[in-house]
């Protein structure tokens, strides 16, 4: 073996498969074992199982229209699951993510209604405010060294309170006033909440947002310096700090990433209708975390993938809509989700142990 051997490694492969290193000892690692080492494997197996299950029990599940409903449900969770997965790989939680989505929608709606005539101004202000809250989470965490569980639980409660309090103060009710007659409403709706028609199948634009975010996050994780830092900060933050990785900046960036996702989700929430219920979103933060964990993110950080979180969100979409297509009582949904979480986590742990024991 010479040092120059890996020169022919394919650089296009976005995964971590090895280059064309020629080493006789590598023969022992079969492609199957390589696959087993991928963080999203458990979730892909789970997704196939769920897909087969509902294909059998629900006749209407395989129709194009059903699939588009499933994709839409998956995308609304997936848009948030991607940055939440990155944050978890970086070793932290964000319990305020669900409330932040609603805050983002409320800020956008109320600012537009009160201050301007164009909804795009509200959308822009909302972006700044939401990113600001994300930065607040990150800075609180890195400055106080409190656990992220506490910091974001605090933010979550404050946001939930502010959402209700401000809305009542300004609108007098728990929902905002309609902004549908304002300038820019139709263009904003086109960007955040339109339905596209692709060959007779209707696809919600959130699905595109979702896919774009997955691609962007995968690129960041696997091919940029920031991605290396995210894995390192989550895997061993002391080692990362000692090697000169800006730990605080990386974490704050991750929280701002979650905020960006919350902004997109929030604008979708607003422009799907024309008003926002101020109590919405609470509880969703756990669903984002569940999607990321089902997708192979290690709860202790340092391991996971953006694609995995997408598969996790897809499982969520299939289960929540599949139950409806199977004409079951939707009350069963949470039971399924919980069982899925346990199974997926066990499967992931088992797979990883197998993969790491290859020597």
């Amino acid at each position, binding site marked *: *073996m010479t*040092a*120059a051997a*890996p*020169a022919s*490694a394919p*650089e296009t492969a976005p995964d*971590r*498969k*090895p*280059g064309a*290193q020629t*080493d006789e*000892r*590598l023969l022992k*690692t079969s492609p199957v074992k390589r696959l087993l080492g991928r963080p999203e494997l458990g979730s892909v197996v789970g997704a196939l199982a769920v897909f087969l299950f509902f294909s059998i029990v629900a006749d209407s599940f395989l129709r194009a229209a059903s699939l588009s409903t499933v994709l839409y449900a998956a995308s609304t969770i997936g848009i948030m699951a991607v940055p939440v997965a990155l944050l978890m790989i970086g070793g932290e939680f964000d319990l305020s993510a669900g409330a932040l989505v609603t805050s983002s929608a409320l800020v956008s709606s109320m600012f537009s209604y009160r201050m301007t005539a164009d909804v795009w101004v509200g959308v822009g202000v909302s972006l700044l405010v939401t990113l600001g809250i994300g930065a607040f989470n990150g800075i609180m965490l890195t400055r106080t060294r409190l656990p992220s569980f506490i910091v974001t639980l605090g933010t979550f409660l404050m946001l939930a309170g502010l959402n209700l309090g401000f809305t009542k103060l300004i609108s007098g009710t728990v929902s905002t006033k309609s902004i549908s007659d304002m300038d820019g409403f139709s263009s904003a709706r086109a960007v955040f909440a339109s339905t596209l028609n692709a060959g007779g199948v209707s696809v919600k634009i959130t699905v595109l947002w979702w896919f774009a975010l997955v691609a962007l996050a995968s*690129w960041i994780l696997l*091919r*940029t*310096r920031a*991605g*290396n830092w995210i*894995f*390192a900060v989550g*895997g*061993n933050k*002391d*080692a*990362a*700090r*000692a*090697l*000169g*990785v800006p730990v605080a900046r990386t974490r704050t960036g991750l929280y701002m990433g979650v905020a960006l996702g919350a902004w997109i989700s929030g604008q979708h929430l607003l422009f799907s209708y024309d008003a926002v219920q101020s109590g919405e979103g609470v509880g969703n933060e756990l669903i984002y975390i569940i999607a990321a964990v089902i997708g192979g993110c*290690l709860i202790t950080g*340092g*391991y996971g993938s953006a694609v995995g979180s997408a598969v996790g969100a897809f499982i969520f979409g299939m289960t929540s809509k599949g139950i409806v297509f199977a004409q079951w009582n939707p009350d069963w949904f949470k039971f399924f989700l919980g069982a899925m979480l346990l199974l997926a986590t066990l499967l992931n742990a088992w797979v990883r142990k197998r993969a*790491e024991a290859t*020597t």
Partner: protein
Amino acid sequence: MTSDVKERTALVELKDISKRYGTIRALEGVGLEVHGGEITCVLGDNGAGKSTLIKIVAGLHRHDGGTFRIEGEECRPASPREALDRGIATVYQDLAVVPLMPVWRNFFLGSEPRRGVGPFKRLDVDFMRRTTHAELLRMGIDLRDVDQPIGTLSGGERQCVAIARAVYFGAKVLVLDEPTAALGVKQSGVVLKYVASARDQGLGVVFITHNPHHAYLVGDRFVLLKRGTMVGSHTREEITLEELTREMAGGNELDDLRHELEHRAP
């Protein structure tokens, strides 16, 4: 050898360094000299102040008193990054690597080479993989696969990756925090070989250990710490392994201990 070395400016020179944590005196009046192509060993029992000393050199802590010179220039590095930029690389016993990350990502962590422009700037993955493999080969480690998580390597191999990394990034001074403490006899030998190979490449090495045998195998200078103070500073010519072991174990305390143990044995 020592006479002409002394005329050169030391790569790192600490004089009369002191450090306090609140009311606790962690270090008092400690000196240290590191030259290129030499290994300076810092010996001491647990709690002697070894860790505090290297944390000052590594830029994790700042000293309260005394002078700290890098290549003759007085300084107080405020962060590990700053110390790194000045050529001081520290390899920690336990926090040298991120276990779940592939070897090549670990190798370049914190100093990743990139190509492309603007938002399309990306890791030069091919170069990173190739270089990691070549550099480790140079140190005598022939990895099957640079993609394996570094946690799957043995403790000795991990230390060697960290040393190879420091050498590759042009460190002038390599600070090793008890690199052999958690290792078996054979693994320790492997690590000591890499320490010596780093020295032969012209680096100055600070080797922290509580094992005088390991220190004497490779060391050129020996600094002994005890309860935060310096109890001895010798060059290799001035001291034998027996004396070093004796001093390290606390001189008279060792005699007492020997006496006590001999007494028990029939």
